[in-house]
């Protein structure tokens, strides 16, 4: 009947980034239908804020200057807590200010978040754009409008990350994930 998994550690948390309200609503519904927990924001900078990544922290050069004056240290444990367990980031490409590609680069530069899978969405089918994103670390590139079949492709990337986490702070186990689906 399409029941959602109980809202505990077994549910994957996706951070969706899109400046279009309609597309945010759509991606949120698509993700929730697939039993993901969703946080939707309207810009790359809000996404970084949500992760607890100051805009400057992700920038290599500025990091050294900021380190002394910045009371918030850039330790991986703290950042992971602030990131509220984000397991995947799905972002639109074309956004004012920070593009989805810019966001991808910042995430991949961050020691705390570089292992979070990033997926890019775009309404424009531009092969050079797609290739650049994939080469620079995006797991998938979805053409808009995003379909349920696209969202179904996300789970393998999340399962990969989940098995890496199994030894860390997460209490969940993969068997629990399977049985709670009944």
């Amino acid at each position, binding site marked *: 009947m399409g029941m959602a998994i109980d809202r505990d550690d077994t549910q994957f948390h996706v951070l969706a980034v899109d400046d279009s309200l*309609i597309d945010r609503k759509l991606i949120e*519904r*698509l993700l929730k239908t697939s039993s993901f927990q969703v946080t939707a924001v309207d810009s790359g900078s809000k996404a970084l804020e949500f992760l607890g990544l100051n805009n400057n922290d992700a920038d290599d050069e500025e990091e050294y200057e900021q380190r002394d004056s910045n009371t918030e240290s850039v330790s991986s444990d703290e950042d992971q807590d602030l990131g509220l367990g984000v397991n995947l980031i799905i972002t639109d490409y074309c956004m004012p200010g920070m593009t989805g590609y810019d966001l991808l680069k910042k995430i991949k530069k961050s020691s705390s978040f570089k292992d979070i899978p990033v997926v890019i969405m775009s*309404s424009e089918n531009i092969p050079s754009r797609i290739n650049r994103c994939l080469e620079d670390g995006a797991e998938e590139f979805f053409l808009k*409008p995003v*379909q*349920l079949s696209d969202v179904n492709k996300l789970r393998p990337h999340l399962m990969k990350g989940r098995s890496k986490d199994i030894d860390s702070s997460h209490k969940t186990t993969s068997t629990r994930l399977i049985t709670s689906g009944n």
Partner: protein
Amino acid sequence: MEVGQMQRRLVDYTKSLFMEGFLDAQFLQLQQLQDESNPDFVVEVVSLFFDDSEKLLNDLTMALDQPNVDFKKVDAHVHQLKGSSSSIGAQRVKNACIAFRSFCEEHNIDATLRCLQQVKQEYYLVKNKLETMLRLEQQIVAAGGSIPMIELGFWRTINMKGGKE
């Protein structure tokens, strides 16, 4: 009119919107995403589309009314409208936006003004159709009936192309 009749009328009306190209497969996807836990999903998305589009059309009218038209700005607005119309399946609006963008690239003021009229026309047409369709749905629900779903297969029978370009 009894519920069964109303449901048949709704199905026929909705199918005609697909056959006439007002809506494409993406709209069917939206309907598939609606369920008992999210019974107003389609209405909500369509309402967002109306609000968004009307604002964009106003912005476009103003932008094209300037002595020195900023085509980059115009293109940005059309890109947004193309995106949202594509996301809800408003095919004719989307197609009008595609044509619009190519004339923006050429910095063709006359053609872009004509495109604006075209997009407005298509928008008001689909708005009217969607409002009619949603009204029919409301009447069915008020009479205690359920909204019949159009099978995804229907889209394939009238158009072999996929939903995306």
